[in-house]
């Protein structure tokens, strides 16, 4: 049986290695690339090579960046004494959209004993050193509000409290525009616990 030309098959094989892409999808993507203009194909190839060559971890916050330190850590417009701790770069982006003007620390994961992820496997020690070196007045723990995220926040707060910095946890509760009737009992309980005076 004669298959695709070797160069097409090579592209299909390479695409099929990507997460969530099976052989059929890889074939469809390969055909799309084949049918697109040379400029588009070159742009895609350069983007892949570019990201591999230039992206690195910021040595301060461990964000993914083209430069070290990253543009957030290098900016003089941002508060240096407020550090927001997030699990992943995607979470940092979500906070950036909110207009937060402090700096970040990306852990690159959360504590998950069943998956073998412990304190030494994520960037907790680097955070402790950063707070020690100062000047950090407040550490905002913005890990996800699930079991692993809560445990991670708790573990970090235990390490940082003796260093004297103020440790805060992001609020939990009813989403803006939400409807009380449809809020689950755990979220409702947390929102009652986190109520504030107006």
């Amino acid at each position: 049986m004669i298959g695709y030309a070797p160069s097409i098959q090579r592209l299909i094989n390479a695409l099929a290695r990507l997460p969530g892409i099976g052989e059929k999808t890889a074939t469809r993507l390969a055909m799309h690339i084949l049918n697109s203009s040379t400029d588009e194909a070159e742009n895609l190839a350069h983007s892949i090579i570019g990201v591999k060559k230039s992206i690195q971890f910021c040595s301060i916050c461990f964000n993914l960046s083209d430069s070290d330190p990253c543009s957030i850590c290098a900016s003089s417009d941002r508060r240096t004494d407020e550090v927001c701790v997030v699990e992943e770069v995607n979470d940092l982006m979500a906070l950036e959209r909110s207009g937060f003007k402090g700096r970040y620390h990306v852990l690159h994961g959360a504590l998950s004993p069943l998956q073998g992820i412990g304190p030494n496997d994520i960037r907790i020690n680097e955070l402790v050193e950063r707070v020690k070196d100062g000047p950090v007045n407040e550490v905002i723990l913005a890990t996800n509000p699930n079991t692993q995220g809560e445990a991670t926040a708790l573990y970090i707060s235990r390490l940082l409290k003796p260093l004297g910095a103020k440790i805060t946890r992001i609020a939990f509760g009813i989403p803006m525009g939400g409807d009380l009737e449809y809020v689950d009992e755990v979220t409702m309980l947390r929102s009652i616990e986190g109520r504030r005076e107006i």
Partner: protein
Amino acid sequence: MQIKKTEAIVISSVDYGESDRIVTLYTKDFGRVKGMAKGARRSRKRFANTLEPFTHIKTELALKASSGLNWINHSSLINVFFDIRLDIGRFIYGSVFLEIIDQMAAESHPVPHLFSLFLLYLHNLNKSNRPNTLMPVFALRLLSILGYTPYVSGCVICEKPLNKKVSSVFFSYGDGGIVCSSCRRDRNGGLQLSAGMINILQYVLTVPTKGLGAIALSSTQQKEILFILKGFIDYHLDKRLKSWELLEQFKV
């Protein structure tokens, strides 16, 4: 494919793709079940907060007749055991217990009394200030329910009853129980048990399960029972539990 409703406790939950989760449950009626919860990361209606580890839920499953992944259609909360998340000791020791069940309970094979023991453990753990004692005590009983009861009523080799006042008895993982000093001469290894440890092991394996939460151990006994349990599990699994390897890192 059969649609079944049952109670379950969530062992683990791993994100899959953009909005799904692969969840491992220990169910009351079908034992350990692994299933796909489609859209679980987005759906606030079908799964809101119910697929977190340690959570006791009611769920509807679509069980596959042959091999393959089951579907979790929806679930609702019975008890979230929230205080487990608020203490690192409870979280890490509780995680070890979850992993023991995950690794040692056979898939789709309900074991009598296991679900009720699991639930009792979570109720105790949720308010415990000594999770390091609670875990080995409940886990030893769990192993017994799973069919791995260590032989502690005499020497596992010569079967002679033990003189409990004699301190030179050993626990042999490979032989599956206590070995007297004379039988031990012919073999290598084994952990020497401190005085009184035989009584504790016998009590843990026979006391009505409701009494397990009240068992108190000295710090030496607590370390010893952890050591016995770890060796016993490592031997039977032929690998180490990931969560147990992390206990030292957590410094609890």
